Structure formats: structure tokens, C-alpha cells
């Protein structure tokens, strides 16, 4: 089985996997980084979102073979202790219900704000509209995004 060296959360990991294994399963099954969630496997829900070289990407759509030499951040590595402004905002707005979609939501917002500290309403909508939340916490996600934007622009 081929081996890959991956940079995840600023650590170097080496894994043995088939080259077509999606990063999602590498993270979850091989590295036990289960904060990244499986929701559909086909780019329809956003639960598996991680940040790769600054972009929010669906880890279910990235074969591990295409993840070498990339800087990958997962929810576990977004901050040491939950202190990333987006996590703090999520806490303030008490967003989660079941919480299952939230790592994906948070990573999407963190990537968006990483590139643009003052995104327009349209930018936010288009960034967020593919992250599904069956519990329906969108109202609070919206509030949390506003809190995060305010915080990082202070």
C-alpha cells in the first residue's frame, strides 16, 4: 500500500492508504481525527469540511494522494483550546443542537474569514448555503458569524 506524508494541524503524519481514499476517511479511520464528519460522501452537505491551504474543502472529495504538500487544518487544529474567534462566537451564540454539522460549519466560516475579514451578505450566503444543518441552527449560525466578524475587526 502506498505511503503518504500529510501536514495536518501543523504536524507531519505518515499514513499508508490507497491513493484514492478520501482525506475524510484517512482523518477519521486512520488518524482517529474524528472531529471531521461524514454526512454524505458526495459533496452535498459540508459536514466533512476542512481547511486546505486556506480554502474550505470537502474532505470527502479529496483523495489522499492529492493532499500531500498541502497544509490541512481540521476542527481539532483550528485552535489549541477552542479559542479561535469563530469557536468563541459559536459559544457565545450557543449554536449547536446535536452538533454533528458544526465542525463543518465552523471550518467553512473560519476559511471564509481567513480570506476576507468583512465578507458581504452575499459572500456569506454563498459560502454557507452548502453546509446543511438538519437540526436547523441557521438562525444562530448567522448570529455567530456576525459576532465573529465583529470580533476580528476590533
Amino acid at each position: 500500500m502506498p505511503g503518504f506524508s500529510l501536514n495536518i494541524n501543523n504536524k507531519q503524519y505518515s499514513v499508508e492508504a490507497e491513493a484514492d481514499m478520501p482525506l475524510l476517511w484517512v482523518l477519521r479511520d486512520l488518524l482517529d481525527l474524528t472531529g471531521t464528519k461524514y454526512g454524505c460522501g458526495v459533496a452535498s452537505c459540508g459536514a466533512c469540511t476542512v481547511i486546505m491551504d486556506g480554502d474550505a474543502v470537502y474532505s470527502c472529495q479529496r483523495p489522499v494522494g492529492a493532499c500531500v504538500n498541502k497544509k490541512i487544518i481540521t476542527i481539532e487544529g483550528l485552535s489549541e483550546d477552542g479559542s479561535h474567534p469563530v469557536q468563541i462566537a459559536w459559544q457565545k451564540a450557543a449554536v449547536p443542537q446535536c452538533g454533528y454539522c458544526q465542525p463543518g460549519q465552523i471550518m467553512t466560516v473560519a476559511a471564509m474569514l481567513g480570506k476576507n475579514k468583512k465578507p458581504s451578505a452575499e459572500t456569506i450566503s454563498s459560502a454557507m448555503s452548502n453546509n446543511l444543518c438538519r437540526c436547523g441552527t441557521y438562525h444562530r449560525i448567522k448570529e455567530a458569524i456576525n459576532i465573529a466578524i465583529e470580533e476580528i475587526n476590533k
Partner: protein
Amino acid sequence: MNKVNIDRRHFIKITSLASGGLVIGFMLPGMQALAIPAFDCEFFQPGAYLRIDKKGKVTVFVAKQESGQGVDTALPMIVAEELDVDFKDVKAEIAPYGTLKQGEHDTGGSQSVLNMYSQLRNAGAIAKAMLIAAAAATWNIKESSCAADHGEVVNTISMKRIKYGDLVCQAALLPVPKKVTLKNPKDFNLIGKSEQRTNLKDILTGKTKYGLDIKVDGMLYAVAERCPVLDGTLVSVDDSAAKKIPGVIKVISYKATGAPMHVRAGVAVIASNIWAAIKARKLLNITWDEGKKNKESTEELFKTFAAKAGAKPQIDVFNKGDVSTYTGKNEITATYAAPFLAHATMEPVNFIASVKGDTCELWGGLQLPDWTVNTISKEFGFKKENIKVNLALMGGAFGRRLHFDFAMEAVKIAQQTDKPVQLVWERTDDIRFQPYRPANYHFLNAGFDANENLVAWQHHVLGTPVAYMTDGPGAKEAPEMDGADQGFCYDVPNVHTGYTPVDFNINRGWLRAVDICVNTFPVESFIDEIAQKLKKDPLQFRLSMLENRPDFKTGDGPGALVQSPARVAGVLKMVADKIGWNDKRKPNHYIGLATHSFIFAKSYAAHAIEIELLAPKKFRITRVVAAIDCGLVINPDGLLNQMEGGLAFALTQALKGEITVSNSRVIQDGFFSYELLRYDEMPPVDVYMIDSKEEPGGVGEVGLPTVAPALCNALAAAGYRPRTLPIRNEGFSWV
């Protein structure tokens, strides 16, 4: 000094509960416990629900299964209130399976707070009484001279304080009091104030472990291909290509089982990782025998409903007065319909089973673990005591995990390997092989007297009952009529409601808000439609049939539910007031109202929805106002989250949620075809709570039923009355 007698039975209980954690120095009967510094313990656990350690940290063992509804916070709050501890010193853990009475783990029907409220208050009060007794003994004063305060006992004479943590080992030796005094609710200082979820930080940092995240030593993974038609059988499988995928260990097959869970015949790929199993599954070449019932379609089903709708209901459900006197004169009739729906929890169902000889161990999220164990025991022949269950947190449930078809599949698969195996449902499985919310159809008829008073109401519900699936073909008397039975809240002198079951060859199950949601859409649409036809104000028209009607019981037994038309009216008036019902509407803006009683959870809710009409049948939801009366509120922020989320869940159903069937196969296979509400479609919402001293009700479902009718009533006010959900099928579109 008071003597502390050791109740030997209790003593043994603590020892065993402590599972080795209770370290006993040397105890002789009759010794003064407080004079024995050698006595030590790890913690104090007076019963199944809570434990206090020597640092004063409290662990509440939550009997109800957490799936996002917030029981892991609301239930510990109830304990903490009576115990008088700071909530930051409280953590929640899942009550291990087997530590509670049968049925206590059951989670559904918005019953968690209702069921647990008194028990948890008692549990907290008992622990507090024992800590106080231990402190009183230490100070050699009366218990009545002690008070509890923020995790400490206060000597009200000397004003000295002892921390709970320093009292736990003495308290653990005391007999458990049979009777304790509970707080007067007016002295509550935790209940009624918002607390953040106990596991919030874990969720936000990705540490939370849901069922799908559990790893058991040596565990393998499985995904399964299932017969596309329910009750079909496997003819043959060619697995030669699948087996070539690296990581695949074996391919096995298993037979279907019928009621209550309707597991389909399947072929499972077992592999060392999920990806290998998923890839290999695609390479299976399977021939199924679909059986005879493989030609059914929802198109035909709705034709059958329509054909039977005008006839007499097969089952009479509720009769009052005599509707026949009025039928045929001054009447309005209408029909409404709604489709099958899937739960689509974000965490697809999954389950781990390990079978070793005549024992079986299970891991996963279950809303009804006792029923699961009982059925698995019966079906597979394991003695109940040989089935060990490890309950897991759920990434959404909504009724999906009341069903345990996936757990039975996992056992079927695990029986064929010597390792623990986690069965993972891919999203396509989740959408295609659900226990679906029944499809339903409604025929309503209203009659008036000469003064245009509503004097007769008939409601014929047609549906594909859940009971046919869970109870088998014997369940012929299976009306699913909550919201349209004897609890019908409007004061109409002559009422007749009835049900006609229609069978259909796909599995059905309970979906959040169940029949009440099914039946409130037609009831609240029709009431509005009548008001519209009679040119009466829809608010006043409803109130005229609610406000003067006293509370009434909906049955004879002692457990009969009580319907309160006044509370149904109360939430309605609240939303009407908050949205400005009597104000002049902005151009092209229309408001719809709907109210109801979620009777078996003792809660009431209404919605007012304002739309802006942009073009014929094209609209934007500009404002949503919700009101809820659920008696005493435990955690207001948790309640708000449920109401906001309930709105999103219900809007999915109103706008676009639909499962269709052709050739007895579900057409939708994922989120591209079974669409959920999205971020940019979430309207602004304000939720108001009615201040109430009534006993607490349940809030997980009450926020759904009035959403679709309120939206449809707004559209009707704009000139377009929707009759079928999702309204997208009637040509509506929204921005």
C-alpha cells in the same frame, strides 16, 4: 455527637455502585463514622442519577438519550436546582444502559422533561438532605439549623460552611431518606435561567464522540447493499470483483426480517476500513427476487387516497353531536395532502455489534434501547443478560433512532465474523431505506347554520400507518389521529373524525411531531379557509371557538390528557400581537396564522408568518413569529434553539421535503434529491414564551406543526391556497 448508623443494605449498594471505587478503612457496626478519619471513599452516589466526588463535582447520569434536543443540559439543571450546586460544577454523562428501570432510557414524544422532572428533583433533594445530615452530625446541631448554598452546607448558627466535597464520604454512610422536601418553585434560581449546553466546548473543538466516531479494539467496518424492494429476497451475488479491493475481508449476506423493524435482505461487505467497503460494495453484482409487491407507486397511492376520501372512514375516531344534520347544506369541503418524509439525520445511522458465542455487545445511538434489546434477544436467541449495550451520543434522531433496524442488521453481520463490526449507512441508504413518515391525505367538510356559525366539522384522515409496520398486519385498528381526535380544540357542536388506513410496501416510522404535525396542517388550513370564505377575521374566528371553552379531558382514564383551548388561544394571541396582526399590512405583504396544542407533551405553540408576494406564487418569507406555552421552562435558551430549529425542520417539509416511490423503490437517494432547508433560506424568527407556572411540558416537537399551515395561510391570503405539501409541487417558488 450523633451516631451514624450504617444501613447495611445501603452500604453494600454504595460499595457495588462504586465498582471498586469505595475504599473502606475499617468499619464496625455502631462506630461513630465521623470519628473515623480512616474512612475514605471516591464519591457519593445516592441512586442512579447522580454522583458527587470529593472535589464537589457533580455528575448527572442522564437517562434520556441526547440527540440535539438538550436533555444533557435540561435534566442536569433539574438535579442541580434541588441540590443547590453551581451549574459549572455539574457534568452530564449518559446513564449506562442497565442502571435504570425498563423504559427509563426511552427517549421520544417530547417526554424527557415531563417524565424526569419529579424524579430528578427528588434525586437532587435526597442527596442534599444526606449532605445536610452529614454536616449536622459534624457540627452536632439539628439538620434544621443547616442550609444548603452553592455546593456548601451552612451552619446557620455559627455561619460556618462545609463544602459538599468534604461531606461526601460521611453522607455515603447515611440511610437514604424516603421522603424529602422539595423547593418551592418560586425559590428556583437555576431553572428558568439559560444555561449553555454541558458539552458545548467539546462540540466546538471536535472532541464529541458520536456513534460513528466510536472505535472498538479490532473493529471492522461494513456497508451493505439492500434489496431495493421491501420483503424481497436474495437470489445470487457475484462478489469476485468486490473481494479484490484491498482491505476487503469478506462479503456476507443476510435474510430479511419483518415486524417490528423490517430489515431488508442484504449483502454486506466487511472490510478493514470504510472506504474499502464502500468501493467494494459498488462492485457487487446482485440478483434480487423483488417479490410480488414491486409495482407500487406514490402516484397510485395518492389516487387511492383521493378515491376513498369521500367515502365513510374505515375507523370512527371521534363523534360528537350529529354531523349528518348539517351535511349537504351550507357546507365547504376541502382536501389536503402530504408525502412520505425521511428523517435524514446529519449523522447517518450506524451501529457496532460484536457477537461472541452466546453473548453480544452493542455500541450506538438508540432512542429505545429496551425495545432494541428485547427484540434482539427474541430474534437472535441471546439471553437479555448476555446483551451488553453501550449507548452513544446521536448526531440527530427526530424519531429515526426509535427504530433499530440498523442495530439488527449489525447483529446479523457481526454473527458472521469473529470481530466487532461497525455497520455504516451511507447517505444513499439513509434516504432510500428509511422508516418513512407516512404519506397522508385529508378530506374535510364544514357546515354552518343560518347565522354563519360553524356547527359541523368532519375530518377524514387517510394514511399509511406506522402501526402496520411495527405491529404487523394484525394492527388493523390503527388510527393515527392525534390533533384530529377527541382533543380537537375548537368548540364546534357536531364533530366527526375518522381514519382510513391504506397499506403500501415501504417501511414507515415516527418522525418528529408525528401525527400532530400531519393533522395540524389540514386542520389549521381548513379553519383559515372557512374564515376566508365567510369573510371573517381568521384570528377572531378562531378565538371565538377557543376562548370561552373550558379545559376538557380527552378520555376517561386517570392518565387522560387535558386539552386547554384557552392556552391554544393564548399562544395565538401572542403571535398575532407580536407580528402586528391588526396593523396595516405593507404593500404585497400577507400574514398567516396557525395554532395548536401538542397535547401529549403538555405544550402549545402558534406561528405567524409574513410573506411578501413578489410575483404570482413567488414569495419571500419576511418574518416569522412563534409563541410557545410549555408551562415552567427549564432552560429558556435550549427552548429557543428547539423552536428556531423546529421552524427550519418544518419549513423543509412545507417547501420541498418529499419522498416519492416508483416500482416500490424510493426515488430520492441523497441531499441532491431530498433537499433540506439551507442557510440562505432561513427566515428571521422571533420566539416568545408564555410565562406560566404550569408543570413543565416537552419542547422538542411543538415548534413544528403550525409552521406549514401558517405559511400556507399567508399564501392563501395572497390569493393562492396550497393544498399539497411540499408547496413546490404546486408551482410555488421562494427567495
